[in-house]
């Protein structure tokens, strides 16, 4: 009897957690709208201040990204060859590269509108693809898809595809060839150098 009670109680708790969850499509919509709203008003970002865009991305977008998973996907089976310390270093550097790239793209934002495609989540699903389209004058809409995975109660983005090009797996061949040449540490070095030069040019700007 008691165990039935515990079971029901836990069901109730699960229920209340579910109620608080933000659905993945709502999450993407909210974050997109919030970020674009800020960019539309921010003359610095519009005129190419990557640094300011990075700050915005770090505050508003990063909490919803799973960089460990991204790094793992980009390294594919090489991930297992890396020590825990190396995995941490790789994730850290890759995160910086992706954030800067994403921020750079934000500075190029003009007045395009984002169209959110219909989405429905089947109960129990832990993987979701949220499809959006960037509409712009004079061209075919650009497909922009977010892949999210549910970890605990929260959905986190683990990949972004632009016109079918994954920002994560597109690095796979580059990473693999860097590793086959100079090992995991070689790749870490390549990423560090790239980030240093990227950082330097964003300061100049």
């Amino acid at each position: 009897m008691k165990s039935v009670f515990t079971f029901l109680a836990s069901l109730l708790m699960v229920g209340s957690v579910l109620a608080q969850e933000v659905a993945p499509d709502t999450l993407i919509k909210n974050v997109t709208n919030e970020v674009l709203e800020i960019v539309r008003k921010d003359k610095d970002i519009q005129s190419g201040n990557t640094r300011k865009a990075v700050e915005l991305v770090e505050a508003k977008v990063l909490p919803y990204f799973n960089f460990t998973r991204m790094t793992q996907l980009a390294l594919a089976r090489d991930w297992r060859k890396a020590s825990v310390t190396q995995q941490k270093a790789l994730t850290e550097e890759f995160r910086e590269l992706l954030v800067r790239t994403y921020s750079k793209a934000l500075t190029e934002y003009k007045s395009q509108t984002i169209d959110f495609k219909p989405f429905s989540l089947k109960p129990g699903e832990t993987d979701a693809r949220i499809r959006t389209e960037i509409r712009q004058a004079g061209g075919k809409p650009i497909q922009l898809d977010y892949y999210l995975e549910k970890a605990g109660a929260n959905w986190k983005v683990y990949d972004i595809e632009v016109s079918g090009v994954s920002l994560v797996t597109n690095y796979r061949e580059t990473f693999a060839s860097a590793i086959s040449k100079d090992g995991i540490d070689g790749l870490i070095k390549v990423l560090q150098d790239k980030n240093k030069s990227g950082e330097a040019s964003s300061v100049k700007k």
Partner: protein
Amino acid sequence: MRINKPMSASLRSLTVALFAIGVLSGCATSGNSKDPIEGFNRAMFAFNEGLDSAIIKPVAKGYDAVLPSPVQTGVTNFFGNISDVFIGVNNLLQGKLPEAVNDFGRFAINTTVGLLGVLDIATEAGLQKHDEDFGQTFGRWGVGNGAYVVLPVFGPRTARDTVGLVLDMAADPVTNVDHVPTRNSLVVLRLIDKRANLLPADKVIEEAALDKYSYMRDAYLQNRRSLIHDGNAPRDVEAEAEQVDRPATAEAGSSSPSAAVDSPVAADGVLLVHAVVTDTK
């Protein structure tokens, strides 16, 4: 319009010559099965980059600076309208009748109400613009990529898409204009307009790429794969994720998922060339 025989014939022999060179120089390989002539491709990529930064990009920047953006949109729309007919033909060849009807409808509306295509009324009326070419049609029919190859001026292609390109050009109304000065002006204008549209993508790619050559290559392949599936290519990340968690069963980078000419972040854009002649958008 008549088919411009000399043009496509010379292109074909050029292609054959390129493959020959590629095969001969095939020793410079990286062991990447998708890119067996990487040594040759890298050289050609460097050549195209040089051409772009010396001539095409500066002109595109000037064009972008001088022309008000509604005018640029009009130019883009004009060439886009011309290409809609062949997009429709390719949709027919792929058995996508509703899409083809959509494309022909776009052409009819935009050519008339849209003042020879300068205004894209059809999009506002709910007829979406598509992106098709002969390379995609072959892909749809089940033809594989073949080797990746970087063509001079035209940029990244696969062997299949190179054949597609030859047909695209043979069918291209612009390269078939009889009056040579007009034809050349139109080809150049289209190229510059296309390149100008890709200017924002440049900076993002510079920021993103560790090795621009391989970044562009993989983006091209991912984008083409996506286009062939009309944006619904099966995702292979999951399969690959399993490889991460399990001891290696297959090779890791087996995805040839695909970048787009006209996306802000995406990549292959920059290669002027993809843009240039095929330009079936």
